[in-house]
């Protein structure tokens, strides 16, 4: 479902196989496991994460077919994605999404949860498909769009025109940082960018904290969702929103078998 490779100071996280990499509970758990592993690596604060995928898709969003067959799974997938994104936002290292295939809905969100988006220009698009499939956007999706897409017209094009955004358009709209000729070239460029960032030698912990500050509206929206949803256990109303999302994230992450006993970053 996903593999994690280390190349010097670069972590390469890949969604594997030729399918749509739908964000079902299993894949989300695997991704979160991988992030936990990255976090606990001793050199993590001097590293960079690159996320990419095999095949035609980066990710085509939630597993809606699964949710249709078992409705409570919908809330569970959403809770797990929120945890994963919160993890990515607090990750003590720069993150690069090397988008070599279609990224739709929650898959587009996952790409946007990275600091840099590099994309292939010959194929594939970013697509906030919800309008086309009669779904509304959760507030935290909108918070991410507002943070990552600067112009009101571009936000409208993303959410309200449901535009299928190519790398060229993405660059124009300020969503994509650079575009490349093929999948291989995109990953190569991500590796090169990652190595350049590592050379700069910034402290990952400081970096992670700065990113949390920059994206605090997204974290706040995720946190508001946590207390409203029944998918993840809430730690209790005495805690502030800030620590309650972390604690509920911690509770959710304790459920992962491989990670019990490992210390997280607070």
């Amino acid at each position: 479902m996903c593999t994690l490779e280390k190349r010097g100071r670069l972590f390469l996280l890949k969604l594997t196989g030729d399918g749509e990499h739908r964000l079902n509970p299993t894949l989300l758990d695997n991704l979160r496991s991988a992030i936990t592993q990255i976090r606990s690596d001793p050199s993590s604060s001097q590293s960079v994460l690159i996320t990419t995928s095999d095949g035609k898709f980066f990710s085509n969003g939630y597993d809606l077919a699964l949710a249709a067959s078992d409705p409570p799974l919908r809330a569970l997938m959403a809770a797990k994605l929120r945890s994963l994104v919160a993890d990515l936002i607090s990750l003590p290292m720069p993150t690069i999404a090397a988008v070599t295939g279609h990224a739709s809905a929650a898959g587009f969100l996952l790409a946007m949860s990275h600091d840099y988006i590099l994309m292939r220009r010959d194929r594939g698009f970013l697509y906030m498909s919800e309008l086309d499939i009669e779904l509304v956007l959760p507030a935290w999706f909108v918070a991410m769009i507002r943070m990552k897409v600067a112009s009101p017209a571009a936000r409208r094009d993303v959410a309200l025109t449901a535009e299928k955004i190519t790398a060229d358009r993405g660059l124009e709209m300020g969503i994509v940082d650079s575009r490349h000729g093929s999948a291989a070239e995109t990953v190569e460029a991500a590796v090169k960018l990652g190595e350049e960032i590592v050379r700069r030698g910034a402290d990952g912990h400081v970096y992670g904290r700065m990113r949390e500050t920059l994206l605090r509206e997204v974290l706040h929206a995720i946190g508001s969702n946590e207390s409203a949803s029944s998918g993840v256990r809430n730690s209790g109303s005495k805690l502030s929103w800030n620590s309650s999302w972390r604690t509920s994230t911690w509770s959710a992450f304790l459920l992962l078998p491989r990670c019990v006993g490992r210390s997280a970053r607070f």
Partner: protein
Amino acid sequence: MCTLEKRGDLFLLTLTGDDEHRFHPDTISSVLSLLEQAKSQSTRGSVLITTAHGKFFSNGFDLAWAQAAGSQTGAVNRMHQMVESFKPVIAALFDLPMPTIAALNGHAAASGLMFALSHDYVFMRNDRGVLYMSEVDLGLPLPDYFAAMFAAKIGTSIAKRELLLSGKKIKGEEAVALGIVDSAAHDSVEGVVEATVSLGESLAAKKWNGEVYASIRKSLYPGLCAMLSVTDKIAASP
């Protein structure tokens, strides 16, 4: 004063007559009632296009009517009345269960510009017509929901300054460069209307669910919608 026509999937709202189409209690309530009509007749694939006749899209509130009150207090009350009664018009546009397009035939000033900006897409002419926030020149304060609209719809500090603080009359090309309008490619009213009809038809072809469309629109502008008391009927999905 204003008419609502149906052309296939498209609703055409037109401010008629060769005047300045100033917003006055009567015009405000006519426009509101036509928007309510469009809402009640909306189906999948409906689209609204708003335009006007003559040299003006709309030149703002009817200040002459306010002054005709005869006293300072009377004038202030009338201004207040127009500001308050105009809010539901803006709210109705944000709530409308269909894509909305403003085809600016001419000048849009103050509340006239607010009216234009309340649409999802704004097209203007290249050759004629300016956008003008006259308040700074007239010494009038900006109502809170006007300020919220500019915060929501205008992206850069530079554009906000040019529009709100400089008293500038902004023409088509500059309006596009500042990101205030989507297009100023046409040198005639017919050109602009044709372009908006073309956009309208391509949006209509998507056959979107209007309630979902409106919900997503409102979620993009949470601050402004809260101020307009525009609520969301569809609960957000996780």
